[in-house]
């Protein structure tokens, strides 16, 4: 188990180094001069050179990267060119709002997707199954930002039951959670449906039925337990997709989270903030994947013992 854990951690670190190299490359090719961004277009060449020197932009590229990586490891992601604040500070301030939204959306999508998947598998190839299939395909096909806009118009403007954006208590979480979670709910329902049908065709299910267990009990106690585990894994691996949705949802709802911070950074070509938010997202995803790997290894001994499946 320890070897497995170490392997996963090393792998996570390698992924993060790769990510930082990619973001660093992007930052390097951005056609914006940070010195001009800080001092203004009318600054004289001496000032610009001084700022470049102060930022270390006159160093060779590999030294710039080493400097960035060293500071990042110490929790310092540099200073935003536009906001003139610490990038780490900005991210830490905005993180709670994103975390709450992402967790609520994930809970909602699993909470709605699992029953939907069980329902359609139980009615396999009959009308209710076809209807749920259509529903989940429709949910997967909804553009996040449009769904958010429509919910905002319906729930905020017409019903007047929900705030029109921003982060102000539990009620303001409802619409963004639905926006972010409905698509994944449809997706998980589809996957669970497939997994359940797989599980229902296996020997242990036949054994359970042969022992005289009712179909419902077999479905819930035996098949579901086996079909739902991969789903949790999938939810963890899907974290990257969730964060993409977060950018759009936060933009629609004016949500004070990382997604909107990243959007503003890209819009302003604020290089340290772009690198910081992308790197932080990668860190979140790597952590989520690691957590899922561990959970999976704990649930399924075949993985931690390294035997081929």
């Amino acid at each position, binding site marked *: 188990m320890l070897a497995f854990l170490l392997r996963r951690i090393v792998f996570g670190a390698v992924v993060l180094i790769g990510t930082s190299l990619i973001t660093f490359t992007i930052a390097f090719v951005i056609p914006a001069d940070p010195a001009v961004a800080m001092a203004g277009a009318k600054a004289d060449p001496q000032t610009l050179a001084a700022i470049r020197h102060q930022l270390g932009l006159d160093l060779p590229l590999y030294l710039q990267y080493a400097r960035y990586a060293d500071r990042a490891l110490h929790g310092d992601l540099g200073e935003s060119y536009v906001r003139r604040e610490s990038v780490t500070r900005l991210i830490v301030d905005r993180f709670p709002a994103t975390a709450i939204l992402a967790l609520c959306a994930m809970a909602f999508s699993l909470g709605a997707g699992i029953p939907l998947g069980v329902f359609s598998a139980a009615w396999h190839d009959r009308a209710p199954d076809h209807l749920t299939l259509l529903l989940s395909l429709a949910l997967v096909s909804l553009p996040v930002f449009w769904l958010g*806009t429509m919910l905002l118009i319906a729930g905020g403007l017409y019903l007047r039951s929900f705030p029109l954006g921003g982060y102000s208590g539990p009620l303001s979480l409802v619409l963004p959670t639905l926006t972010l979670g409905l698509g994944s709910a449809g997706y998980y329902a589809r996957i669970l449906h*497939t997994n359940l049908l797989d599980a229902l065709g296996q020997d242990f299910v036949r054994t359970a039925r042969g022992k005289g267990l009712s179909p419902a009990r077999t479905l819930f106690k035996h098949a579901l337990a086996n079909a739902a585990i991969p789903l949790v894994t999938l939810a963890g691996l899907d974290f*990257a997709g969730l*964060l993409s949705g977060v950018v*759009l949802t936060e933009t629609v709802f004016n949500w004070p989270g990382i997604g909107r911070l990243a959007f503003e950074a*890209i*819009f302003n070509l604020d290089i340290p903030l772009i690198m910081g938010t992308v790197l932080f997202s990668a860190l979140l*995803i790597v952590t989520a994947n690691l957590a899922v790997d561990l959970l999976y290894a704990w649930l399924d001994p075949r993985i931690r013992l390294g035997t081929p499946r």
Partner: protein
Amino acid sequence: MNGRTNTMELAGAAMVASLLAVAILAPHLAPHDPARAVASTFGDPGAPSAAFPLGTDELGRDVLSRIIFGARVSLTVGLAAMAVTMTIGVAIGLAAGFFGGAVDFLLMRFTDVMLTLPALLLAMAFVAVLRPSLLNILLVIGLVSWTQIARVVRAEALSMAQRDFVLAARALGASSPRLIVRHVFPNVTPTIVVMAALGTSGTLLLDAGLSFLGLGVPPPTPSWGRMIEEASIYFRTAPWLAAFPGLAIFYAVLAFNLLGYGFLRRNRRAGRGALR
């Protein structure tokens, strides 16, 4: 592909065909010029009426005509980006799966790194750097969406590379490129077809998302995503401005999803990998 054609597949194919028809015949189908002010209500959005079934925007342009012309951009970006995605994904997947060993290890670690970056965030950064243009956008979408395909194709190629018919062909002296192109690739095509249909719904959504964030194909070309973004200040007074272009995106994405899941139903084996 074998098995019976199913309703989902047929519905998806019909919807995709209708989209293509609208895009190709746009100048004949659109009642008005999408880029010109045709309503007298200049300055305020006009509500849907007999003359303008889906209303007009704040510049007096006909929403229906703009949606019809928008199909051209959306489909071009969606399909071309999918082609880029498939080219990269299939090439990497085949190479990794077929050669195995160090090639596999390096390519798959690179894929893992790319998988760790949120596609939209990465695409936003790339587009901001390269400046939005039709070509840049479809290349960027392709560049950030190939990971899933590479993994699935790799898994398939890995199992193919050790099959008897491949070993037999190798024993007969076939070169690696020939083995990949003539023996492994054809056996992976069912999976590729499924992934292509499902992948197009993904590229369409990514393109719409970028447009909504102001990083899409630049004006005056009408784009569905940007129409919704531009409508955002009229939520109160003219909700239809945002509603209809969104329905168009939804229709297009649903069309490709139906097609993809329809293929899946027909070919279970291909489906196994494609869903992961």
